[in-house]
Structure formats: structure tokens, C-alpha cells
């Protein structure tokens, strides 16, 4: 998006010693403290967490189902470590990621468990790491690492998928997103794991230890197409921002703002973007996240697979989904007790609104 901060690049503003004013240490501390408070509060307001916790449940179900079904056929396809991405790509994720991957081969060993990072790919927004766990200990079917790699202080969220490929051998893919308002071209990653467990959040059998990784990753090349479009319905505005295309994926950035009334009427407000190209390919949403300064304005980022090289246009259709959470019981006065989630086949209120599609040239 073109804005004033970009335009201010390269504009020479002459400054001299007279332009500065003395500042005390106290003053500096005060400014820093206030800023830290603001950027951290912003993180807390993030919508992503709620999204992701819902997503984890969905991914968890779908993921294990697919992995379970296709386990035998894929296990043979993993004779060496380089194509872990391919292993996890049968549901549309990670196709051709291995071509962009940066080989790392970092190893950390602790408490009889060896953890090695194989490949990383970073698209400016999401970091993908493939890893392998080798041990004589019984970590169950899907061990949990309980830690996200950190590469910024803007707040992060992520998902991991781990699967057993052999006795004492597990492979996994981990995705981590950041909340910064812009993409990064290079990141310094710090991944510290202090416990591997058989159940999420250090539950079940826990193997304590110290596995640490530090590395830098460059973002893959990408190009950005600015898209200006605005849809309005009663109580809500959806605005397109841009599409970012990387060699292995594309991301759509858009945002929505809602009136207080609409916000209060519904428990969940999602805006998804359905994507097709001019050749008829349909691109499923692989990841969707949103964050915002307030609950009324949210910035969304949706990730999709690789754009068909022969496609010249993408057709985007925003779909607004307004829904309520499940009722899990009733209190003494007969008022419904609301859950903080909505299950997949819920019969709670839901309204889906499809907006007018737009066409974007991608060649």
C-alpha cells in the first residue's frame, strides 16, 4: 500500500544541532515505557489468537485424519529428510515449498531426544520450519514441542503438525506468523524448547530438556499487486489491500470494519476470500488470520497455494460469515450459557453473505 511513510523516503529534511532539544534519562524512560505498553497492548487485542485456537482444533482434526489415512503410502516416500514438505503436502499445503527451502541441518540434543531442523522457508509473513525428532523414548503418536520460534517482538502465533514415521522417528512442520504491520525481508530466529510432551501444552508425559536454535532466514522473492476495492453491506465495510505473490504461495491482505451494533449482534465475524483463477482452478484457503487495534477494525491475511503459472487473472469473492457460539447449557434462570467456541456442525445462528467478485490481473 502506498502511503505517506513510503513517500517520505528520500525526502531530505535538513536538521542541525539547533533542531534538537535536551532530553533527560527520565524522559526517555517514560517514552519507552509508554511505547512498550502500547505495542504490547496491541498484541493482546489481537484477534489472531482466537482465530488460531479455533484453527488448531480444525487443523488438528483434519490433519490427523488425513495423516492417518495416507500414512502408509507416504511413509515410504520419506527415505531422506529433504522432502518433509512433500510429506505434508497432500492436503494442498506446502506444494513446491521444498524448492524454495533453505537447508539448515541444525541439531540439538537433550534428555536423550535429538531435534533437528531441516528446512526453513519464510515468505515475509509466515515462517515454515520442517524438523525431525529422533529418540529411544516413547513420545507417543504426536509429540508436542510447546514452543514457537520467535523472530520479532510484535507478537506471534503458530501451528505445528508432527507425525510418527518410524519407531523413534517423527517429522513435523511448524508455521509461525507475526503481527507486525509490514512484512520482514530478513529475520533472526530464536527457538527455545524446554519440554516435549505427549499431549499439548506440556500435558501427558513430559520430557524436560533444553533444545535451542538460533538462525537467520531471508524472505523469498515476492511481488505485490495493489488492489483497490471496497464492498459495503449494512453495518460492515470490506476493503481490499493487496495480493502478494511468492514462488510457492500467495497472500491476500484485506480488512473489514463493522459497526458496534453488528459487532454486538454476533460472536464471530469472519471474512474469507474465495479465490479462483481464469483457468478454473480453485484455491483453498490454507491459513487465515486477523489482527487489529480495535475489535471493530480487523486486518486479515489469507494464505493460498502456488498460483498456476498459466493463470492471468484471479477472481476474488469475499464471503462474510457471521455466527454465534454454541450454547452449552442453561443457568438457574433459564438463560443460555454460551461457549467460547462454535463447533463445526453447530446449529447456533449463522449468516453467510457472499459479496460481488472482483478480477485481478496477475500477469
Amino acid at each position, binding site marked *: 500500500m*502506498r502511503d505517506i511513510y513510503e513517500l517520505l523516503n528520500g525526502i531530505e529534511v535538513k536538521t542541525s544541532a539547533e533542531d534538537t532539544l535536551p532530553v533527560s534519562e527520565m524522559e526517555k524512560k517514560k517514552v519507552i515505557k509508554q511505547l512498550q505498553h*502500547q505495542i504490547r497492548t496491541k498484541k493482546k487485542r489481537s484477534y489472531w489468537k482466537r482465530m488460531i485456537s479455533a484453527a488448531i482444533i480444525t487443523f488438528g482434526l483434519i490433519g490427523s485424519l488425513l495423516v492417518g489415512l495416507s500414512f502408509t503410502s507416504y511413509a515410504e516416500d520419506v527415505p531422506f529428510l529433504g522432502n518433509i514438505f512433500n510429506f505434508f503436502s497432500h492436503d494442498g499445503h506446502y506444494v513446491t515449498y521444498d524448492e524454495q527451502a533453505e537447508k539448515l541441518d541444525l541439531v540439538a540434543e537433550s534428555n536423550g531426544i535429538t531435534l533437528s531442523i531441516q528446512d526453513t522457508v519464510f515468505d515475509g509473513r509466515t515462517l515454515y520450519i520442517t524438523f525431525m525428532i529422533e529418540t529411544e523414548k516413547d513420545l507417543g503418536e504426536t509429540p508436542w514441542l510447546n514452543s514457537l520460534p520467535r523472530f520479532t517482538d510484535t507478537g506471534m502465533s503458530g501451528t505445528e503438525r508432527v507425525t510418527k514415521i518410524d519407531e523413534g522417528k517423527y517429522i513435523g512442520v511448524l508455521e509461525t506468523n507475526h503481527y507486525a504491520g*509490514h512484512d520482514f525481508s530478513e529475520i533472526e530466529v530464536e527457538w527455545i524448547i524446554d519440554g516435549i510432551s505427549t499431549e499439548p501444552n506440556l500435558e501427558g508425559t513430559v520430557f524436560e530438556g533444553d533444545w535451542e536454535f538460533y538462525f537467520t532466514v531471508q524472505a523469498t522473492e515476492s511481488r505485490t499487486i495493489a488492489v483497490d476495492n471496497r464492498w459495503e453491506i449494512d453495518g460492515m465495510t470490506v476493503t481490499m489491500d493487496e495480493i502478494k505473490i511468492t514462488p510457492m504461495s500467495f497472500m491476500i491482505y484485506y480488512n473489514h470494519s463493522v459497526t458496534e451494533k453488528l459487532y454486538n449482534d454476533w460472536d464471530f465475524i469472519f471474512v474469507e476470500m474465495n479465490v479462483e483463477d481464469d483457468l478454473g482452478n480453485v484455491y483453498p484457503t490454507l491459513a487465515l488470520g486477523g489482527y487489529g487495534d480495535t475489535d471493530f477494525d480487523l486486518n486479515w491475511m489469507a494464505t493460498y497455494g502456488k498460483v498456476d503459472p498459466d493463470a492471468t487473472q484471479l477472481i476474488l469473492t469475499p464471503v462474510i460469515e457471521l455466527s454465534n457460539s454454541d450454547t452449552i447449557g442453561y443457568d438457574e434462570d433459564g438463560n443460555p450459557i454460551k461457549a467460547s467456541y462454535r463447533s463445526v456442525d453447530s446449529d447456533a445462528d449463522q449468516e453467510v453473505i457472499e459479496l460481488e467478485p472482483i478480477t485481478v490481473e496477475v500477469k
Partner: protein
Amino acid sequence: MKTNGTNFVRRLQMGKEDALEYIVDEYLPLVKGISYKILGPLSNEGLLEECINDIFLSIWNNAGKFKGDAIQFKSWVAAISKFKAIDYYRKAVKIKETGMDSLEFPVRHTVEDEIIQAENEKELMDLIHTLKPVDQKIVIMRFFLGMHSSEIAESLGLSKSAVDSRIFRARKKLSEKAEDFMLGGKLDERYL
């Protein structure tokens, strides 16, 4: 790794909090100086503090849009400070003005006033982008940074009259474009 004088831009762009501390430490005197120069006459300590805070927050949130080295970064910080402080000044003055008897002293809106009000209008930014690079710079310097023609002329190595005529033409072009773009009610008469 710690933030220092050679890696702070990169670390800021990576979203590292200690880089934010570094730039406050390094640039607060400059940011405060520039803000004070513009907002000082209003004698409003709270507004000055708010503005300074907003400047650093904008730098943090928009770090990825900066392109250049540490020296250019200083200029970018100075430009943001100036633009923000002018913005705060205009808004504060506007509030004061509306508080007075506005019938007797109607507020006169200049193109510059209206443009700065529209700072977040994406359409306007896109319109500015349709200008030639040098005219883009002139428009930004004049309308957002409140620089005089002579200052702009010196900075760009042009004559003052050349700058004046370019401002005139750019302004005309922007209002024509705004009509072309059919930005009904958003940018046309209200802004240009």
C-alpha cells in the same frame, strides 16, 4: 544479538523491541526539538507528549517502509516528526477555531489544509503517485512538511520560480485527476 549503531534499522524492521529503545535513545532529542518548534506556540504539554509518542509509534509500525541507511533514516525520522507535528498543530488549531464564533470568522480552508486532512486517504496517496517523482517530492514537502518554496528549491536544486510553477501545476493536476477518478464526495471539492 544487541541493537547498535550499525544494525538498528534492520532490527527495527525485524520488529525487535530493543531497537525501538535504541531509536528513542538516539532520536528523542531531535523528535522533541522538531515537535516543539511546531507545537510550542500552543503551550500544550500534553499534546506535545502525545505527538512525540505518536511519532515513535508510527516509526515502529511503518519501519518496513523505510528504505536506506542510517543517515537517511535520520532524515526519515525528521520528516515523519515534521509531518506529524504539523498534523497535530492543524488539528489542534481547528478545534480551537471551531470553539470560537465561527460565523464571524469563517475558517478558511486552503488546499494544503485539506490535503493534510486526507493523509490517510489511500486515494490521495495513489493520486500523488501519478505525479512525476520530482513533483511527488515537491507536493510532500509543501503540503505535508510545510516547507517554503525556497527551501524546497534548495533541497532539489531547482529555482524558486520553477518550484512555484510546479506546485501550481501539480495542484491543478491533482484536482483534475480527482475528478477523473470519480471519487465522488471523497476527494473532489472537499479536498482540492
